[in-house]
């Protein structure tokens, strides 16, 4: 699978307020692209455009285009559920669905009609990829809400992986986690980027330095700087980028 993301002239208004201005970026396949920037600058909004979760927010108006692989996701007639199947989202706060660990992971595959026989295999594979299998294999029938936050976040990852997406979006996935769980999840992401296009929104500049190949610095709804991670971090072209990165260290 090789699915790059191309954002072209993307503008977004929330009621009368323009939240995203003329976004033009490429997010390459099999890479981690980190979106950094101060709170409220539109990072999460941009991320949520990529799987059209933004549609759930009333009062949002969008023009421009986002292509995922060869599919233009804002074209009329596009099946939103299909976009969301291709683009998994791991949210800031890990949330269990009100069911067992097994059923959480099987939730997506069941929606797409995967048969009863295949499910255990899909669940095991997804949990293994998310690095959670060994910890839960003996209690798959337990309520998912009994897991620790770090485990729960990896369960959310497994749940997202189970529908076989091409792109994985992470919205500040470690901000609720302790340092050990954070390291674990970062390691998972480093593995996942071999297969998936990963995009991560993070407040943590060190985290971006540790895992990102590409960096997007967003400020007040605009992409201020965009490039290879080592370039953005070591020799930022823009003043604003330098001072934001400087303040974060």
């Amino acid at each position: 699978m090789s699915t790059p993301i191309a954002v072209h002239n993307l503008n977004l208004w929330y009621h009368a307020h323009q939240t995203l201005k003329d976004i033009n970026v490429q997010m390459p396949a099999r890479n981690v692209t980190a979106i950094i920037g101060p709170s409220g600058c539109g990072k999460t909004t941009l991320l949520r455009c990529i799987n059209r979760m933004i549609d759930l927010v009333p009062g949002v108006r969008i023009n421009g285009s986002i292509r995922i692989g060869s599919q233009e996701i804002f074209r009329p007639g596009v099946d939103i559920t299909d976009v969301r199947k291709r683009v998994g989202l791991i949210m800031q706060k890990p949330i269990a669905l009100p069911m067992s660990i097994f059923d959480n992971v099987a939730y997506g595959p069941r929606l797409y009609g995967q048969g009863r026989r295949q499910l255990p295999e899909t669940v095991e594979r997804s949990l293994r990829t998310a690095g959670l299998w060994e910890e839960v294999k003996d209690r798959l029938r337990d309520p998912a809400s009994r897991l620790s936050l770090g485990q729960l976040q990896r369960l959310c990852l497994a749940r997202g992986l189970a529908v076989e997406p091409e792109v994985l979006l992470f919205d500040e996935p470690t901000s609720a986690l302790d340092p050990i769980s954070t390291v674990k999840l970062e390691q998972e992401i480093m593995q996942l980027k071999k297969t998936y296009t990963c995009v991560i929104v993070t407040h943590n500049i060190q985290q971006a330095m540790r895992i990102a190949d590409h960096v997007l610095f967003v400020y007040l709804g605009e992409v201020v700087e965009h490039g290879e991670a080592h370039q953005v971090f070591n020799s930022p072209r823009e003043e604003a980028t330098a001072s934001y990165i400087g303040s974060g260290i």
Partner: protein
Amino acid sequence: MMRRMKEVVFKSLTIGAAAVLVLILVAIIGEIVIKGLRALSWELVMQIPSGGFYLGGKGGIANAIVGSLYLGLGATLLALVISVPTVLYLRVFAANWFVGLVRTLLDILWGVPSIVFGAFGFTLMVIIGLKASLLAGIITVALFELPIMIRAIDEVVKMVPRELEEVSYGLGATRTETAVRVILRQALPGIITGMLLAFGRGIGDAASVLFTAGFTDYIPHHPLDAAATLPLSIFFQLATPFEEVHRRAYGAALVLIILVLSTSIAARLLGARLGKYTVK
């Protein structure tokens, strides 16, 4: 000093209010249990009234017990079939202004006395040509239970976190799939409670079945048979001038309370089991 006084006074007032409530409850239940136990017997529970029952003759209230159970269960199931889709519609599909309108209307309906539902049910029966029967009673009591059940379930479904929905949409689920597989599951214990609340109100209501269910000394075998109910049975017995019949009315009241109480306990146990997977 003043603040301490306020604390003491306020605390005493709250304790007093709670104590009054508990006292009233204990008094009501105590009276029914004490008087009811004296009248309670196998004959009362297992037999239908024989000739002269309301004059102090032999027999029991099996007709009313069975009638009430049929009526309460039937009405509650019917109301549930309408309530759950309504609530899910309000949560996942309806526009905000419409949700507000429906909630206001339901709150008004909640306050409508059951005798009005009884009269409405009677009018409905005349229009569709149904005579006083178990079925007519079930329909009327279901109408009476609807606002109670919908609002109770609505309150629980409102509490289901938005993030849960987002998780489901994020995996590509449609609104219908999200409503049925996630919201309903999370709200299940609350739905049971709402059902139970409505069942308790429905089985104990006399006015809504007064013109609609009819009254008979026999156990109904068909939805179109007339059916006796415990509240009306209690009413007819208390309306007689005979001491012996009055005592049996308390027996009937005790049976009614036991029915409601045991359903309540059963539902709570069931709710706890079904709530195992609920996300806190």
